[in-house]
């Protein structure tokens, strides 16, 4: 991962690059009117590096090149389907365009040199404010044959649908329902896309970043403690 020192904190990370941002900027202000980092101790480093994740260059290292080459061979349309490849902290992430995700999963599962038999996890992250396509759905695939892991990531804007992978990995059934429940991402082709953790008549999607945590102030020994999302935060 390459790290670039930040310039203007008001510009979202992904905006200049035209690529889905990896990380949103965290607020630098709010500490009693102090501008900048407000950190005079040097504890959090005086200048906050503003990271941006680019395409990782070849070779990726470890087994990642083998996986990529095998996928390219088995799925000729790969260059269209893949937005970028990121290798970070010894993990390979393939950013896939939403409309291709089910096909890519099918190839990942069935090709003899890939064999990602197990879809370990499907979950989502809301990059509100740092990426136009705010919802990133991450698929953690495991190859039991080769003992490898790969993450596929799909970025969609609010209201854009993602093809369901339940036809390829039936285990994604409940996990896609959870993402729908928590983020409001709609998976087309899912057999029964209903809420799973929240009650059926719940309004809103709780894991979205613009959904408040909620809670009520608590009185303790005469002092009133505000709910967690309204407490003073040391960023």
């Amino acid at each position, binding site marked *: *991962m390459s790290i670039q020192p930040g310039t203007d904190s008001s510009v979202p990370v992904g905006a200049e690059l035209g690529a889905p941002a*990896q*990380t*949103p*900027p*965290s607020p630098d202000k709010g500490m009693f009117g102090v501008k900048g980092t407000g950190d005079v*101790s040097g*504890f*959090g*480093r005086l200048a*906050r*590096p503003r*990271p941006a*994740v680019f395409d990782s260059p070849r070779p990726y290292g470890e087994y990642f090149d083998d996986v990529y080459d095998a996928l390219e061979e088995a799925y000729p349309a790969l260059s269209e389907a893949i937005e970028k490849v990121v290798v*970070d*902290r010894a*993990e390979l*992430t393939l950013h896939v365009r939403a409309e291709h995700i089910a096909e890519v999963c099918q190839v990942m599962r069935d090709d003899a040199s890939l064999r990602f*038999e*197990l*879809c*370990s*996890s499907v*979950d989502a*992250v*809301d990059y509100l404010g740092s990426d136009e396509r705010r919802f990133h759905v*991450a698929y*953690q695939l*495991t190859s*039991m044959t080769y*003992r490898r*892991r790969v*993450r596929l990531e799909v970025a969609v804007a609010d209201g854009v649908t993602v093809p369901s992978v339940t036809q390829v*990995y*039936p*285990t*994604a*059934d*409940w*996990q896609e329902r*959870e993402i729908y429940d928590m983020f409001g991402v709609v998976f087309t082709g899912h057999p029964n896309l209903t*809420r*799973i*953790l*929240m*009650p059926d008549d719940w309004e809103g999607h*709780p*894991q979205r970043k613009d959904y408040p*945590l909620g809670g009520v102030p608590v009185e303790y020994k005469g002092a009133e403690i505000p709910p*967690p*999302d309204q407490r003073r*935060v*040391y*960023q």
Partner: protein
Amino acid sequence: MTTSEYASARETTEGRVFTVTGGDWDSLTASVDPLSNEKIVVNMGPQHPSTHGVLRLVLELEGETVTDVRPVIGYLHTGIEKNLEYRNWTQGVTFVTRMDYLANMSNETAYCLAVEKLLGITDQITERVTTIRVLFMELQRIASHLVWLATTGMELGAISMMLYGFREREYILDIFEETSGLRMNNGYIRPGGLAQDIPDSAVRKIRDFLKYLPKKLKEYEAMLSGQIIWQQRTQGVAVLDVTGCLALGITGPVLRSAGLPWDLRKTMPYCGYENYEFDVPTATTADVWGRYLVRMAEIRESLKIVEQALDRLRPGPIWIEDKKIAWPSQLALGLDGLGNSLEHVAKIMGQSMESLIHHFKLVTEGFRVPPGQVYVAIEHPRGELGVHAVSDGGTHPYRVHYREPSFVNLQAIPAMAEGALLADVIAGGASLDPVMGGCDR
């Protein structure tokens, strides 16, 4: 006043007396076809002693045969993942430990491994910390399997097994209490180290436990394995083969009972498991019986690991050297409970202002974690526990998602139970060992 066919009347000295007989039940029952296949829908749970917590199963029955099962979850959803985003990285431990309340140490370790991987300090974790983590994860696995044995025994009619299983588990909880101060929800394993060192008294207790449990396990096997009711309730019940397991994402003892020796401790080792001698037990029956055999064998394997971990335990630091991450104080037990040691308080309050600032910043603000995302998976008592942690570079997690084995494994209930008897739903569900706190988070 009129009389009817079903209320004959006669005159007495007291007046007219009616004798009301049964209604037209004879004619009603005669009109029902005994062979009709009328379906009934039964709501089992969410409050039901055999559903392992607040799991609700909507069953469609034809007589005693289950034709359709729909598990309904979410009754224990507490928004832990959302709450984590409003706390700093260290505070996260206290939340994740409450997810799967029968495997606290595993939850905590998985979270800490993810945070440490994000920080890039995985190889700076000291030997002693890793050994103690392994020690406690394995004790936790034993405790969790004992609860499984206890509750499954109860659900299949062996009430005494319930009492014995919980009794033995209490032994392990005592060890946890001796070390962390709490029986459950320990908050003991922290990013970068451990809340405190393991006391010698706890080590002695573990040694005693290692001698104690194998004898007891033999007793339980003597009680259950040869028991004809136990055999008939478990053998050939709730079969799910390897293909079914992989399609549904089932891992852990259920997958191993189908014959695939997939155990992350062996296949993708973490915490130095590759240096321990142990086997991965499997069965080939793919039924409840096989899962029972696998779990009993796993308890024995875990005992082996615990023994090896104890032998490897060498004195050493329980925090990483980096003072920007390591908790600033050594905790000590005072009159008012566990808190900062008096020496540390004397130092920050009386001698070193820099120490005070350092302590204050680290405790109130927490450490920063470089931006990025990781997925870390460990072998939980119930299968693959995965932590997908995302950092934005701040002091709070941007997102933490738990891939909970209970959540994923529960999807297997329809595959196991449809077409079987109602009683087998209980046995099959129990063999998955779901913990709803983990499932719903």
